[in-house]
C-alpha cells in the first residue's frame, strides 16, 4: 500500500491584528444581526436531502462533496443554533450547540469565497426553498468583520474604500473618460451639474472593456439623452456587495444615488454588470429606509426599452447565437426575457444552452471569484461546463450581458485554448445601430 498523502490544508488569508477570540466574536456578532425571519426560516428548514449538490457548478465539476452548497452554511447554522434559535438556551445548557471555532471559519473561507459565486442555482433546486446564496452573502458579512477574506479581495476592498472604486480614484475619471472618448470617437459627458441619466460603469469598462463604455455613450448620444458620468459616483460594481463589506457596500451605493439626486437625475443606468444589478436594483433602498427617489435600470433593460419604443433601431445580424444568462441579472434579477428580446431585434437565431435562463450555469467568476486568483483552478474546471454547453449548441456567436461574466469566460477560454469569443449584448447593439 502506498503512502497516504495528507489533504492540503484549506487556503485562507487573514487581515488585521485581531486575536482569534475577537475574530470569532466579530463574525458571530455580524451573523446574529442578520438572523431575521427569512434567514431563520431557511436555517431551520433544511432536511439535508443534498439536492443542492447537483445544482452547484463547483460540486459538479470537481465531484467533491465538500462543495455541497448547504454545507457552506455550517458556521452560520451553528452560530444560529447557539445564539438565537428558539431552543438556544436549552442547546447551550446541554452543550448541544457549539459556536464556530477559528479553525472552522478559516476552513470555510475557501467554501464561502473561492467556491461559491452566490449564483443561486442551489436556491432553485432546494425543495424547502432555502435561499442558500443569500445566506452565503450573510456569512461573508461575518467573515469580513472577522478579517477572514481572500487577500486579493481584501486588497480590492481597501482600494475601493480609498478611491470609491477598484479601478480609479474619482478625480482621475475625467481624464480616463477623455481618453476613452478620443479613442472611440464619442462624446462622454462628465461631471455635468444637471442631467436626466447618471451613467455608471464597471471597473473593466475603465480598463479592458472601454468599448462598452464608448458604445453606451454612442447609444445615449443617439437618442439625445441628457446624461453624464460623475466622478462623485461612477463605479456600480460594488466590491462591498461581493466581499461582505457592508459599510463599503453602503458607501458605494450612496455615492451613486446621492450623486443622481444632486444632479437632478431620475435614472441611474447600470452597466453590463451582474452584481451591480444585485447591489443597486434590489439592495440600494435598504440603505435609505424608503423607496429610492431615482429609477435604477440595467443596460439590458435600457436597450430593450429603447428598441421597444423605437428610439433606436438595429440592423439584423442574421446569424446563430447562444446566450449566457448572468445569474444576478436573470436567476436573481428577473431579466430573462429582456435580453432575448434584444437578441431577437438583432436578428439572431437563438440556440439556447442546455441549461439557460434561471437554470443556467454561472460563468464561475461571480461573487468576486473572478478576482480571487487562488480560485483560478476551480474556475477553469467550472468553465468546462459552460464550454461544452456552448459547443453543443453549434451557434456561431456567444453573447452575454455582464462584463464580469465576459472576463471570466475569456479567461476560461484562454486557459482552455478555446477560440470562441464572448460578445457583449450592448456592443452588438451599438455596432449595428441603424440610422
Amino acid at each position: 500500500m502506498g503512502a497516504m498523502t495528507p489533504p492540503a490544508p484549506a487556503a485562507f488569508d487573514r487581515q488585521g491584528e485581531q486575536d482569534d477570540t475577537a475574530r470569532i466574536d466579530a463574525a458571530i456578532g455580524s451573523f446574529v444581526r442578520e438572523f431575521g425571519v427569512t434567514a431563520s426560516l431557511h436555517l431551520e428548514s433544511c432536511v439535508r436531502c443534498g439536492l443542492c449538490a447537483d445544482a452547484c457548478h463547483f460540486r459538479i465539476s470537481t465531484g467533491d462533496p465538500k462543495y455541497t452548497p448547504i454545507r457552506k452554511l455550517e458556521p452560520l447554522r451553528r452560530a444560529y443554533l447557539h445564539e438565537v434559535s428558539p431552543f438556544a438556551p436549552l442547546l447551550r445548557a446541554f452543550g448541544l450547540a457549539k459556536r464556530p471555532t477559528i479553525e472552522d471559519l478559516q476552513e470555510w473561507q475557501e467554501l464561502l469565497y473561492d467556491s461559491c459565486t452566490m449564483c443561486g442555482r442551489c436556491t432553485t433546486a432546494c425543495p424547502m426553498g432555502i435561499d442558500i446564496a443569500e445566506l452565503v452573502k450573510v456569512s461573508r458579512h461575518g467573515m469580513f468583520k472577522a478579517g477572514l477574506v481572500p487577500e486579493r479581495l481584501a486588497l480590492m476592498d481597501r482600494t475601493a474604500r480609498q478611491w470609491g472604486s477598484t479601478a480609479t480614484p474619482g478625480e482621475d475619471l475625467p481624464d480616463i473618460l477623455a481618453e476613452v472618448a478620443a479613442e472611440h470617437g464619442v462624446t462622454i459627458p462628465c461631471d455635468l451639474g444637471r442631467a436626466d441619466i447618471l451613467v455608471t460603469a464597471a471597473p473593466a469598462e475603465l480598463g479592458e472593456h472601454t468599448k462598452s463604455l464608448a458604445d453606451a455613450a454612442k447609444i445615449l448620444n443617439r437618442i439625445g439623452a441628457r446624461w453624464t458620468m460623475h466622478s462623485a459616483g461612477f463605479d456600480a460594481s460594488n466590491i462591498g456587495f461581493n466581499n461582505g463589506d457592508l459599510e463599503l457596500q453602503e458607501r458605494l451605493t450612496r455615492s451613486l444615488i446621492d450623486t443622481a439626486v444632486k444632479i437632478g437625475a431620475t435614472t441611474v443606468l447600470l452597466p453590463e454588470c451582474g452584481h451591480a444589478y444585485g447591489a443597486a436594483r434590489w439592495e440600494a433602498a435598504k440603505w435609505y429606509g424608503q423607496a429610492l427617489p431615482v429609477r435604477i435600470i440595467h443596460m439590458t433593460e435600457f436597450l430593450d426599452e429603447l428598441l421597444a419604443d423605437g428610439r433606436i433601431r438595429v440592423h439584423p445580424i442574421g446569424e446563430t447565437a447562444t446566450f449566457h444568462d448572468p445569474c444576478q441579472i436573470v436567476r436573481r434579477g428577473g431579466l430573462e426575457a429582456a435580453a432575448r428580446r434584444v437578441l431577437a431585434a438583432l436578428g439572431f437565431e437563438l440556440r439556447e444552452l442546455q441549461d439557460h435562463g434561471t437554470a443556467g450555469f454561472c460563468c464561475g467568476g461571480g461573487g468576486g471569484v473572478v478576482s480571487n486568483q487562488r480560485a483560478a483552478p476551480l474556475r477553469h474546471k467550472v468553465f468546462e461546463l459552460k464550454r461544452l454547453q456552448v459547443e453543443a449548441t453549434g451557434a456561431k456567436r456567444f453573447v452575454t450581458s455582464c462584463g464580469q461574466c465576459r472576463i471570466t469566460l475569456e479567461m476560461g477560454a484562454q486557459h482552455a485554448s478555446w477560440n470562441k469569443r464572448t460578445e457583449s449584448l450592448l456592443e452588438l447593439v451599438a455596432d449595428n445601430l441603424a440610422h
Partner: protein
Amino acid sequence: MTLLEFARGPGLYASLAVFVAGTLWRLAGILMRPRLPDLSPAREGAPSRLAGALQANLRAMWPRPEFLPGARFIAINGYVFHLGLALVFFGYAPHIAFVERLTGFGWPALPDPVMYASASITIIALLMALAMRINDPVRRRISIADDYITWTITFLPFITGMAVAGEPSDAILARKHLLYEGPLAVHLLTLELLLIWFPFGKLMHAVLFAFSRGATGVRFSHRGVQ
C-alpha cells in the same frame, strides 16, 4: 399503573403537550425574529406577496426539469414515505379509533390490505432513504445527528406497529381485552417519542416548509423571476 395505562394516559398527554408547546415555541421564535422590509420597487407585473408565496410552494412540489435526472429518485422516494406515513396514520382503522377516543372525531378507514401495503412500502422507502444517506458521499458528508435520530424515531412506530397488527382491524377493534398489551404500549410509546422529538429536530419541516418556500417566493416574485 401498567405500561399501557401509562402510554394511554400520562405518557400520551405529556407527549402531546411537548409536541404542541414545542412546535408553537419554535415557530413563534422564528416568526418573531426581526423583519427587514424589501423597499425596492417591484418588477412591473410582479404578483402579490401571497401569490408569490403560493406559487413558490407549488413549484417546489416537484424538481425543476434541469434537476430532475439527479433528483427524481429522492423526490419519488420522499413522496412515497410521506404519503405512506399519512395513509397509515390516518387510514388504519385502529388509529382512527384511537383518535376518536381522544377527540370524538372519526372517519372511514381504508381496507387493511391497503394499509399493510402502505406500511410495507413506507418501510422500504425509509430504508432506502437511510441507505442513501449512509452510502452517498454528499448525503453522508452533510448529515448530522438530527438526521439519524429523526430517521430512527420515524421508523420505530412502523416496526412496533407491525408487531401489533397481526389480526384484521375488525377483530382487533371487536376485542374487549387486548391480546398484545405490552407490544401495543411500546407502539404507543414510540409514537409519543416522535411527538416529543418533533419540535426539536427536522420533523419540524412538516410545518416550516411552507414558510420557507413562501419567503423565497416573495423575494423572487418581487423581482420578476419566473
